């Protein structure tokens, strides 16, 4: 672990070099150190991820896909990232494109809702430290007891709020109740009720899209049992957002699982002015298609091959 002072020094160096355009020699003179040390320090800052880059790379094809998606689904915002051989790089590019879009939106909104899952975790990881003190970040669903990564809504809201130096709300509720009755009781608790009300009224929500099978994160963390999956499959499940499952007509499935989860549902999402969905995995294509078609999401960031597939295999 680096100390604050070491990190400050590296951040300062990369700012001088990349933003102010100082040469290695100019930095060396300023700090009274040698040029090779400057060069090593800059490399170190890159290796440690203190600075990271994104290359704007739209092509004729991505622009065309964006126009088609926008017209087809009446989208507020759409961004299609060119497919790359390097999967990790492609994923990082999708997240960075989402970050750039959101940074540009933040000045004009006052509240941001955040879903949960690996995609949301990756998104928060890519955020730079930049103050938007006026912003309020609201979790959209309750907490998950145990997980290796901090992928649940409450954690992500507080992590992002730290980076944006803004306020955040906490949903003091488990993600899933043991029974319908317990869910009803939980919803009566003032602080839970209040946070959920705030969640319903955010200006912009960001969500990942979910699927319903054994490889879904929900199954892996033991929240979605095999019986649940079977029940959902019988109802022709296509996917979920904030863990609310829907079928091929975009209808919320009346399942045991959904009757116990605590968070904002599909109807609530439809009344939020802007819901940004981010998708980078092929197995989420059906989920993305239904979410777009039934306007659970109205802004969309994805890669070239998923965009292609949505437009040409489904439409």
């Amino acid at each position: 672990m680096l100390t604050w002072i070491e990190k400050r020094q590296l951040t300062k160096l990369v700012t001088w070099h990349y933003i102010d355009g100082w040469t290695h020699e100019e930095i060396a003179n300023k700090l009274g150190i040698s040029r090779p040390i400057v060069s090593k320090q800059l490399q170190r800052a890159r290796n440690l991820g203190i600075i990271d880059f994104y290359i704007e790379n739209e092509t004729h094809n991505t622009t065309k896909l964006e126009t088609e998606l926008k017209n087809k689904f009446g989208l507020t915002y759409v961004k299609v990232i060119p497919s790359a051989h390097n999967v990790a790089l492609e994923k990082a590019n999708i997240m960075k494109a989402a970050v750039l879009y959101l940074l540009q939106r933040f000045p004009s909104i006052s509240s941001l809702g955040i879903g949960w899952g690996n995609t949301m975790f990756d998104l928060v990881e890519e955020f730079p430290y930049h103050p938007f003190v006026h912003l309020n970040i609201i979790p959209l669903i309750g907490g998950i007891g145990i997980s290796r990564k901090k992928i649940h809504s409450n954690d992500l809201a507080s992590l992002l709020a730290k980076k944006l130096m803004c306020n955040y709300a906490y949903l003091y509720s488990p993600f899933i109740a043991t029974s319908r009755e317990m869910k009803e009781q939980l919803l009566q608790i003032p602080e839970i009720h209040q946070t959920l009300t705030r969640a319903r009224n955010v200006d912009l929500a960001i969500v990942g899209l979910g699927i319903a099978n054994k490889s879904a994160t929900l199954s892996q963390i033991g929240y979605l049992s095999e019986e649940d999956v079977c029940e959902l499959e019988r109802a022709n499940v296509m996917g979920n957002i904030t863990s609310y499952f829907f079928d091929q007509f975009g209808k919320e499935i009346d399942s045991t699982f959904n009757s116990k989860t605590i968070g904002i549902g599909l109807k609530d999402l439809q009344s939020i002015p802007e819901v940004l969905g981010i998708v980078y995995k092929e197995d989420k294509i059906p989920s993305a298609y239904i979410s777009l078609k039934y306007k659970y999401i109205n802004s969309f960031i994805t890669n070239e091959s998923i965009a292609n597939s949505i437009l040409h295999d489904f439409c």
Partner: protein
Amino acid sequence: MIEESEKVSLIQVLTMHFIEGLTQSEIARQFGVSNTIISRKINKGRELGFVKYFFKDETAYTVNLERTLEQQFALNEAIVVPSFGKDLSMIEYEVAKSAAFYVMNNLRHLKSIGLTWGKALWRFIQELPYQENKDLHIIPLCGGIGSINLAIHSNALSLEMAQHFSCNYFQLYAPAITQSFDLKNQLSSLSVIADILEKGTHVDLAIVGIGDITRASTLREVGYLGKNDWDLLRSLGAVGDIGCMYFDQNGTAIHSEFNKKVVGITLSSLKSIKNVMAIAYGVQKKEAVLGALKGQYINTLIIDSDLASALIATN
């Protein structure tokens, strides 16, 4: 607009340089072209805004404030500590610690240190380690301010700092503000005072606090100045002081009987000192610090981020 083919080539080079981390000469070798061609492409890509930078370290916000302050006010160095979510006593501690870090880091170049007076300086000295430095001399830069709160007077601070470094120190046996210009002249001609004042103008590092003229001002708190003095200073446009020498919003020394009665380093002498380090915190000091910066009395500035952003916004 640029040709699609040129764009593809630019993006390829930018990706190799920024994402894959190849140097310009490594890329030049791969394409069998000169370094200049690659360097030109990289610059063009940057100018066209194809490269986006992500500052992912928590120091990014304060480093950016530091850099802006350094550029706007031609400072050697600014150290900004984050104040978001902290109360005044936590901020005091962080600012003091940073000031102590700066001094310890530069100590080997120093033969003499001058001190004005005040709470910020007292707090800073508490954070200094005990480390013998026999060749160092500590010199008070102004006289005493009455007979209360003695611990924060220039003489007491000099003694205390000398104890931390087991080094030499001087004392200035005069009040900061005398009854008249005449008395000040008489005092200043005494060799026991004149010598110290003279030494004060030649220190390697002067460490100063910046006083404001709000109700929270320490000079006001200790009752050293009467209401008449305050009214006079305010009517003359004073916004702050360094060592009881008052200046206006442009940093110009106030032409008044008041400054002429003060025993201590003058603002013009301060300017000729190689490195003047100011320690300040709290937004109520905004006007005072801005005046001091505009007067170009300060080379090194240690402040909190709220004050830093207020300074930048006002300027």
